[in-house]
């Protein structure tokens, strides 16, 4: 019978720091070193690498140290030890690069299919009350930073509320789409930063700015369609989905990019969540058109809204290529066409 291959090692017994030169060999499911034996399953075996020392950790705190890594690898192989799959991948440039490619593909796939699926499950699980509290929290934050109390006269606000309520009740009578259990319109002054704007927060709070109402004071149908669009966001809980997505992407980005820079980690979050909301915008547009038609509102007046907003932004947009790149709305023409379709 051929004797098992042997290798020189330094044995540290875990009590004395003195190295004891021993010979090691594998035989009968056990590692023999000097006059000692340890069953194979009780050992922590080192992974094959090009650099560094090889150490076999023994039960009870001792270890065998091998100064010559190449000799150890040759001995381990000759003794019938094979590398784990992970080690084979780590030692091959081709497989390591393949894992990077798979990583990117996996991230893209998770982003395209996994994330929306997971977000939908979480949204289904999250109670409306928690969502509402989140929305209130956001609104109070916005009220401190970006929004001021509306300067619209009380009777004007009342008139807009009345128009909206009338359209909704007419839509209900005509078998329009389901409306959320809870929603509320808030009038606010958006100042220079927000300008003509309307947005829906998680939980059903819809904010519309004085600037938008002023811009469309002669186009109530456009205003009502905008509100219907925001109600679509509320109905489909887009705000919550957006926040969950941005949060998840932020976590993944920080794992990949690491602590290198918060700046780098924030960029994909912003870009990704904007790209996402394009689908949401289309969904809200569909909802708005259905609701508007059922409520006797002329949705095609949205063309005026797009035209005026574009004119208002026009000057800045031309000089701001960035503004187009990060815009979260589908191209205006496409949406005008959608709202004007018979």
């Amino acid at each position, binding site marked *: 019978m051929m004797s098992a291959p042997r290798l020189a090692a330094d044995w540290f017994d875990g009590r004395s*720091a003195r190295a004891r030169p021993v010979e090691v060999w594998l035989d009968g499911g056990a590692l023999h070193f000097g006059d000692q034996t340890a069953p194979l399953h009780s050992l922590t075996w080192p992974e094959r690498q090009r650099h560094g020392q090889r150490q076999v950790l023994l039960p009870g705190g001792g270890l065998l140290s091998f100064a010559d890594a190449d000799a150890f690898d040759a001995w381990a192989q000759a003794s019938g030890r094979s590398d784990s799959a992970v080690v084979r991948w780590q030692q091959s440039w081709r497989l390591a690069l393949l*894992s990077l490619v798979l990583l990117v593909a996996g991230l893209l796939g998770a982003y395209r299919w996994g994330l929306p699926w997971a977000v939908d499950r979480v949204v289904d699980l999250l109670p409306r009350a928690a969502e509402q509290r989140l929305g209130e929290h956001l609104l109070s934050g916005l009220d401190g930073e970006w929004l001021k109390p509306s300067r619209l006269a009380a009777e004007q606000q009342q008139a807009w509320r009345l128009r909206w309520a009338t359209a909704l009740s007419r839509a209900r009578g005509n078998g329009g789409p389901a409306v959320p259990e809870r929603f509320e319109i808030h009038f606010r002054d958006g100042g220079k930063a927000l300008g003509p704007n309307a947005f829906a927060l998680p939980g059903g709070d819809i904010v519309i700015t004085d600037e938008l109402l002023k811009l469309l004071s002669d186009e109530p149908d456009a205003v009502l369609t905008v509100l219907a669009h925001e109600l679509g966001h509320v109905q489909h809980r887009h705000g919550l989905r957006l926040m969950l997505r941005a949060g998840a992407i932020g976590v993944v980005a920080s794992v990949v990019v690491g602590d290198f820079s918060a700046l780098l980690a924030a960029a994909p979050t912003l870009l990704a969540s904007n790209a996402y909301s394009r689908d949401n915008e289309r969904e809200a547009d569909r909802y708005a058109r259905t609701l508007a038609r059922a409520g006797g509102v002329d949705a095609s007046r949205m063309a005026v809204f797009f035209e005026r907003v574009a004119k208002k932004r026009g000057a*800045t947009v031309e000089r701001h290529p960035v503004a187009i790149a990060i815009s979260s709305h589908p191209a205006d023409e496409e949406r005008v066409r959608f709202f004007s379709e018979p």
Partner: protein
Amino acid sequence: MSDLHAAPEAAVLPSPMSGPRVLEIRFTGSGSEYFRIWAVNLLLILVTLGLYLPFAKARRIRYFYANTLVDGQALSFHGDAWKMFRGFLLLVLLMGAYTFAGKVSATAALVAFLILCGVWPALWRASLQFRLGNTSWRGLRMRFDGALKDAYLACAPLYLPLMVFMAWSALMAPATDTDRAAVQAYGITSLLVMGVVLLLSPLSFALFKRYQHNGYRIAGQQAQLDLSNGRVYLLGLKLLGVTLASALVAVLVLGLLVGGLFIATGFKPDTSAPLTQVGFYAIGLLVYLLVFAVVLPFGAARMQNLAWNGTRSQALGFRSSLKFRSLFGLTLKNWLLTALTLSLYRPFAAVATARLRLEAVQIDSREDPADWVAASLAGHADATGDIAGDFFGIDMGL
């Protein structure tokens, strides 16, 4: 260890030299090898939806330990990845609850913050116990012997003002921004607290380092850190000076460069145009990055030297001579290449930084460490209550 067949029995050889000697630290890791380990680890983390993280971490620690040679012998890591997994779950739960509480309400956020502050020193100690207790050199386990009470005392000067301020701001924060006086009072108090925290941060750094280093043990050796608060405050002042000076230089150089460019080309920018404003932001960002590229390595190099030069035990003395210039050059190179390669350079950067920082340290020993025996044999047996740390395998940092 020449001819093994001539010495078949595990004979205890007399040490080749006893008496004072220097234990050199060498780091033999390779960026290209760690790159491949990193790539496969990342894929496994993704495939397991993050659950592989502690296992990846254990592998990374093993790689760095196997390549850290102290006097020719590598460190070894005995940590059980499954225990680290438990610690990882605990931390994820804790941070998840904290983040969620922040989104629910201000009161919930405050309670979560106070709880986190309350358990953090204990977690910190547990992680030190786990890491040290699972590190060995020449078969001798290291230990961390810091008392729980001292962990809380070390954290107190930083945590207490923050906790009081958070509680105060949650209770007293102005409800609306219409009450001018309240807003002003709130702003002034916030600034005051920030100033207090800034003033206390060198003291906190000294307390953290003293707590850590005074708890390090191996065999019969008990580390002791001689680090006065005054020296840390002096370093803090220097850091402030370097920050201001580098900001000034960055602004001057960039200003001269941009101004010179305008004069040379005869271009007069329209200060109200958005593009010009974007340009100003870009310059501001560049100044910010340049300042950090100077201040971070300066602080890191000086703090490492300060902490390790003051550390000694019965037989050991540490010397750290990490040069600011080397770390600055390396940081600049790492940042640039990491940005250019979309973070593919990160593993190379990690290996290069570890090499520079580790090899800057030397250990003077008055004894031959081969003569050491484990603490339990030397009569220093003390069963510290590190069961929590070991059970959960909490491991932070690195």
